[in-house]
């Protein structure tokens, strides 16, 4: 930038003073009016309301909550529900997006066309409409529990939601999980060493896989085989056992992941296209297979292009989870900025807390993705 001359510098100072004074005056006017309005309407201020009894129930909670709990507890329930639906949505959208993004570049004409149709359809229809469609039109039309749609005999979909197996936190479950984790860690270590030493054969891969899975399976079979998981089963007119994912949750996750998945697919596609064609050709010349080229040559380089926009897709998915307010999934906006705000009337505090929470979530996701980005970027630079 050009250095301002003294006359310009004076004008700059004056401009800034005027803008600052205007902003401050506006803020002061707002604060004054708000204080007047609040006292006029007899609305308390401050954060004391967080300790008062909420008095309303919530249909889906991850922690203990009842009508006798406090508003603070209700806030926590909403926050956890937001985090849950965002995390599930991010994982599902990423898997879907990567698959479809690769499929769009497939040499298979039909696969590429279908992927394009998916992307162009889901990107150009409002998310809220999609959520309504899944929740009201699809899940709302599901059969009664007795006529549930069964997925592999362990998951059941009906008009009360999706019934899934639930892990029982018994000693047997923990032992099996610990063995699985230890086995997997050992297998990964062995496989890495085999790769480094250049003896990564198919037999060794099968051996590693067995090392990861067999101890856990054995523990599950010998130990307490039945108590590890609680499976849903029909009892009378409804299901018993397992865990139920309410239709609001399922509809929201479907909407969020299908919508964001379409954006991630485009992101992945442009990332892969950004990798120099010569890279693919030289990898092919070295005799790598198509799968190896994608996994070892293209994706590591494409990640550098993919990660920054991917971060913003994750952020928008998290923020879009607030659309749950329209179908009644009890996340932060619906519980806190909806019910709590209506009951207490403390709009300023409630909206401020809500916004602060979203800002913090955004900062955390952006921070984590920046760390990851630094790693993928450095791997690229080390070449």
């Amino acid at each position, binding site marked *: 930038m050009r250095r301002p001359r003294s006359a310009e510098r004076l004008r700059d100072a004056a401009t800034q003073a005027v803008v600052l004074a205007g902003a401050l005056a506006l803020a002061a006017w707002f604060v004054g009016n708000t204080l007047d309005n609040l006292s006029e309407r007899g609305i308390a201020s401050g954060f004391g309301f967080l300790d008062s009894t909420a008095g309303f129930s919530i249909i889906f909670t991850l922690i203990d909550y009842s009508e006798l709990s406090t508003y603070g507890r209700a806030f926590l329930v909403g926050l956890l529900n937001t985090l849950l639906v965002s995390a599930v949505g991010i994982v599902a959208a990423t898997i879907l997006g990567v698959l479809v993004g690769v499929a769009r570049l497939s040499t298979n004409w039909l696969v590429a066309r279908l992927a394009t149709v998916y992307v162009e359809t889901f990107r150009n*229809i409002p998310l809220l409409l999609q959520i309504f469609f899944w929740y009201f*039109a699809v899940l709302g039309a599901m059969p009664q529990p007795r006529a549930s749609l069964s997925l592999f005999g362990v998951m059941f979909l009906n008009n009360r939601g999706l019934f899934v197996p639930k892990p029982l936190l018994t000693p047997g479950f923990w032992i099996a999980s610990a063995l699985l984790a230890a086995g997997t860690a050992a297998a990964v270590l062995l496989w890495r060493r085999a790769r480094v030493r250049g003896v990564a054969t198919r037999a060794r891969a099968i051996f590693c896989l067995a090392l990861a899975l067999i101890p856990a399976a054995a523990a599950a079979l010998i130990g307490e085989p039945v108590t590890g998981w609680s499976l849903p089963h029909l009892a009378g007119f409804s299901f018993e056992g397992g865990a139920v994912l309410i239709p609001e949750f399922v509809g929201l996750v479907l909407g969020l992941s299908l919508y964001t998945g379409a954006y991630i697919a485009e992101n992945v596609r442009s990332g892969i296209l950004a990798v120099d064609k010569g890279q693919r050709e030289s990898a092919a010349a070295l005799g790598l297979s198509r799968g190896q080229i994608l996994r070892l040559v293209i994706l590591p380089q494409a990640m550098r292009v993919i990660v920054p926009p991917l971060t913003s897709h994750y952020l928008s998915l998290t923020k879009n989870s607030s659309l749950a307010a329209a179908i009644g999934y009890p996340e932060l906006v619906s519980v806190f900025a909806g019910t709590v705000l209506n009951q207490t009337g403390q709009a300023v505090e409630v909206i401020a807390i809500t916004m602060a929470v*979203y800002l913090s979530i955004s900062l955390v996701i952006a921070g984590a993705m920046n760390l990851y980005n630094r790693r993928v970027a450095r791997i690229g630079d080390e070449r």
Partner: protein
Amino acid sequence: MTGATMGALRWTRRNLFASPLNGALTIACLSLIVLAVPPALTWLVLDANFAGTSRADCTGDGACWVFVKERLGQFLYGFYPEPERWRIDLAFALLALLAVPLLVPRVPNKKLPAVLLVTVYPVVAFMLFHGGPGMDVVETAKWGGLFLTLVVAGVGIAVSFPVGILLALGRRSHMPVIKALSVAFIELVRGVPLITVLFMASVMLPLFLPEGVTVDKLLRALVGVALFYAAYMAEVVRGGLQAIPQSQYDAAAALGFGRRQTLYLVILPQALRHVIPGVVGVFIALLKDTTLVLIIGLFDLLGIVQAAVSDPQWIGYNVEGYVFAGLGFWLFCFALSRLSQALERRLSHSTQPAKITTFR
């Protein structure tokens, strides 16, 4: 075998059955299509009911388009009084009349329609919509349907674009106060969901204003949407500003251009050309997000469809309603994205004879 069938066979083998895995994928996709498309078509068209006026006319297993037909007026205009609906039609016809010369490359004088569009048209449109000389007033509470969606989107775009440019310039300003305020606004808004901004506009704005002063609900929503998207617009425009090399500023200074001339004649025209895809992307996002106004009680296209499918008289026909609304939004968004591609091509040709490669 003729040459054509040989060619088709070769094409099929190369594009659909190149390897066993590829063949399996093809068969999986084909079975997906066979499973999904015929039933969908049967429901949408073959078994669907088109004729009639009431629920009783929907007998088949297919879609009940009678429902959409009966409610079409509401879906398009909301609760706008029927005898006055010509005013909306007229306003959109005028818009088309002004916009077409701008979009067709061969029309020579673009200045006049452009100036009319940004100065006279908003006033005329407002008088037609709300009520002007010799016309009855139609309160905004009666506005709805596609009409309201287009009003929110149009005003949102028209306001957020210039405000976004200002914010982007503010963020790159050398004046610390302006820069700090711009950065704070942009980052705050981009960190929160649109719903919270709309909630703020609907519950907190009345608190901010003196006792007795009320602001129209639609206006509050418009302010919320426009300011929210101005922050996103600002980031897109900032990308374009950053792409302008320092030499452009230096060259402008060497020609004796002042700060303002440099900005208007050198920097902005280039920067905005760079960011057309991003700007249209924000427009599309804004258009889709107009649906959120239904959460604060306005009846946009989706809101009015949602109200209609909840009507006991037509219960059970929500898929028809969603398909109609989805098709409406899809057409607008798809058209916008194609328009952006066309604009991008045209503007890149007008300045650079060489083909621009998007990647690398």
